[in-house]
């Protein structure tokens, strides 16, 4: 009887010992992250998605940022933490519906660890909550609407390397008032979050400086801008600032000189139409037009970057102003992924979602092309430098945007 009990105890002890011996040396990874973890097998790639407008009339904006991000991957040698990088994504169409659809598809793909996008602010308004609620983090290279980083409305997973339009609108207003010495201006937007906010910021700042500004609006998809321009002409503006997108901007610019009273009015656009496609859409009226856009002249290492870009995609000029912001966004994401990922000895990766978000938010003095990036508590990570450019005949003939600014704010 006693012997039997002893035998059983011995057997149990032996099994226990065996179990202990069989366990791996390191403790098994256990996900303690608030938002959960994404596991990547030893031979699986790290999947990063883009949400960009890669087709339609604003396609150059999306292609430009996609190329910038791809060069960042090339510069990493296509590898992060010993895994290859898979970069694909969804077209967002530069409208709210497209942004929502793209975000929903990205949120449904459980292999995606981070998102670069969106391009147009209208896409991010419905898109950011969906991506953020899925526990993912997104860094936008070109959303500029103040709404997106408004303390009351900003989504916890949302970051951007593009400037906030509070800066762009103010710089544009300052240029028009102090340099061109105009006192009466008009501004036209299309009702979208980017264009409306920028037009309003511009008008507010211009009024603060002492001028008067009229705000008028068109609809996305409008073709005949002459009635609206005739309305604007009634207020006799010296300059019209229209921060819209390529299609509507092209119609406005092309029809401007046909409207009595606007034959000599100076035109100014913003970063959304700072693309050769706009030159094509407008035609000869564009000569002499001003643009507010990121200041490339203060970018660090920008020339080598552009050389890579032009060579890789066989282009004569850059497509839109946000390729460098996209390059920086991708590198910021890489740096944060390196901090927030746990690697098993067999090569399996565990990306901790909340830790990733915290790592991006903690970005401080990150040396990018667009400047030293530091994220504020609301996701604005840009080092915003805006300058003013002017298009000349040579730019139109070659279909290239000007490279050197004619004016910049004193730092």
């Amino acid at each position, binding site marked *: 009887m006693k012997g039997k009990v002893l035998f059983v105890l011995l057997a149990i002890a032996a099994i226990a010992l065996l179990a202990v011996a069989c366990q791996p040396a390191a403790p098994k990874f256990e996900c303690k992250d608030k938002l959960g973890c994404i596991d990547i097998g030893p031979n699986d790639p790290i999947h990063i998605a883009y949400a960009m407008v890669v087709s339609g009339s604003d396609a150059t904006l999306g292609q430009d940022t996609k190329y910038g991000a791809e060069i960042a991957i090339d510069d990493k040698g296509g590898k992060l933490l010993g895994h290859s990088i898979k970069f694909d994504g969804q077209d967002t169409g530069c409208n709210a519906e497209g942004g929502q659809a793209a975000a929903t598809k990205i949120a449904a793909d459980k292999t995606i660890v981070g998102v670069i996008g969106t391009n147009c602010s209208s896409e991010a308004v419905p898109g950011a909550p969906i991506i953020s609620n899925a526990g993912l983090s997104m860094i936008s290279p070109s959303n500029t609407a103040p709404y997106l980083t408004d303390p009351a409305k900003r989504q916890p997973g949302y970051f951007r390397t593009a400037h906030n339009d509070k800066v762009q609108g103010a710089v544009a207003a300052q240029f028009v008032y102090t340099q061109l010495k105009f006192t009466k201006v008009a501004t036209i937007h299309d009702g979208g979050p980017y264009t409306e906010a920028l037009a309003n910021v511009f008008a507010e700042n211009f009024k603060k400086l002492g001028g008067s500004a009229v705000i008028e609006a068109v*609809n996305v998809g409008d073709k005949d801008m002459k009635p609206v321009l005739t309305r604007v002409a009634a207020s006799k503006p010296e300059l019209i600032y229209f921060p819209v997108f390529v299609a509507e901007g092209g119609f406005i610019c092309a029809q401007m000189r046909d409207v009595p*009273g606007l034959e000599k009015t100076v035109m100014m656009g913003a970063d959304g139409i700072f693309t050769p496609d706009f030159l094509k859409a407008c035609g000869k009226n564009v000569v002499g037009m001003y643009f507010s856009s990121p200041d490339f002249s203060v970018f660090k290492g920008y020339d080598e970057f552009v050389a890579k870009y032009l060579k890789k995609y066989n282009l004569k000029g850059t497509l839109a102003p946000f390729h460098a912001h996209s390059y920086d966004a991708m590198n910021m994401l890489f740096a944060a992924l390196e901090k927030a990922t746990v690697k098993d000895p067999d090569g399996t990766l565990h990306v901790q979602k909340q830790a990733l978000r915290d790592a991006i938010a903690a970005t401080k003095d990150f040396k990018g092309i667009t400047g030293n990036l530091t994220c504020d508590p609301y996701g604005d990570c840009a080092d915003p430098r805006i300058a003013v450019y002017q298009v000349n005949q040579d730019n139109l003939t070659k279909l290239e945007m000007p490279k050197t600014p004619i004016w910049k704010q004193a730092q």
Partner: protein
Amino acid sequence: MLRRWRERVNLTDIVMFIIGASILALALTGTVLNILHPKFTEQQWWSFVVDGLTLGSIYALIALGYTLVYGILRMINFAHSEVFMSGPFTAYFLADWMASTGFLEENLLVGLLAIFALAMTISTIVAVLLERIAYRPLRFAPRLVPLITAIGASFFLQYFFKGLYGPNIKVYPEITALRTVVEIGAIRIRYLQIFVIVAALLMMAGLQLFVMYTRTGKAMRAVAEDKETAALMGIDIDRIIVITFVLGGALAGAAGVLFGLTFKQVKFDMGFIPGIKAFTAAVLGGIGNVVGAMVGGMFLGVTESIGPSLFLDPLGVPSPGQLKDAIAFTLLVLVLIFRPSGILGERLAEKKA
């Protein structure tokens, strides 16, 4: 007395009347305020009208395609906006080539005719293929089936042309000769605008003459009236339907070139909004009625152009230019409240409605 009145008028009628009356009152207030505090000059008012007529002529030409097909088949051809897009999108390449070689400026008339001919041919081919492939097999299917097919065909054509010519904007060449400005009193009008309005009016007049005074036109009217009886009288229904699509397609192609010359940009989805507007114009004028489509188109164009300044500006609405579509569709509602079959709408017999 009161009881009899209560029996005759129901609540819906009263609500509709109140809506209609208040919209009218609002529009009237705006107009009166405008007269009291003039903000725009006479010249500016005229340019609203001229711009409106230019756009309205294009709407009217597209609307004819909707109305012709509706008159014959009692179906709304939602792919018509793609018929409108296909011609000028293709003819762009010809126009661009002729402009780059300088041929267009030297032989303006020949050049323009060639552009029109190509665009109208392509649009006609697309319209006829559409009828042959997508609609004819469904002629006796329930009503909803061809409607859904039309929407599907519309998407197919849009993306087909996107694949064919690319997703980017193409820009029609500027024709300097048509930019000359003529001043008639306070009216400032460009040759191009005169050309668009006159060309549209000529084509519409031609169509009206064709429908009213030719054998084929008579046959078309007979088919529109009653397909079975027309067939019994020896009319080849299939032939008449094809002719209808040919006419609609050719007019849409011409409208497309006028659009391209006026607004320059062409793109694969350029037909969508003009298509919707033209459909509205057709309903506004009374769908199925040729003159109605013209009146509806012009009316819609002018209202869109002048409405924000005339009705909304004096009421202090911020950026009223954005609300021009709201004005256009409110107008549609208003017309339908007071005249349910459109401005010139025929009284639809029960089988047609």
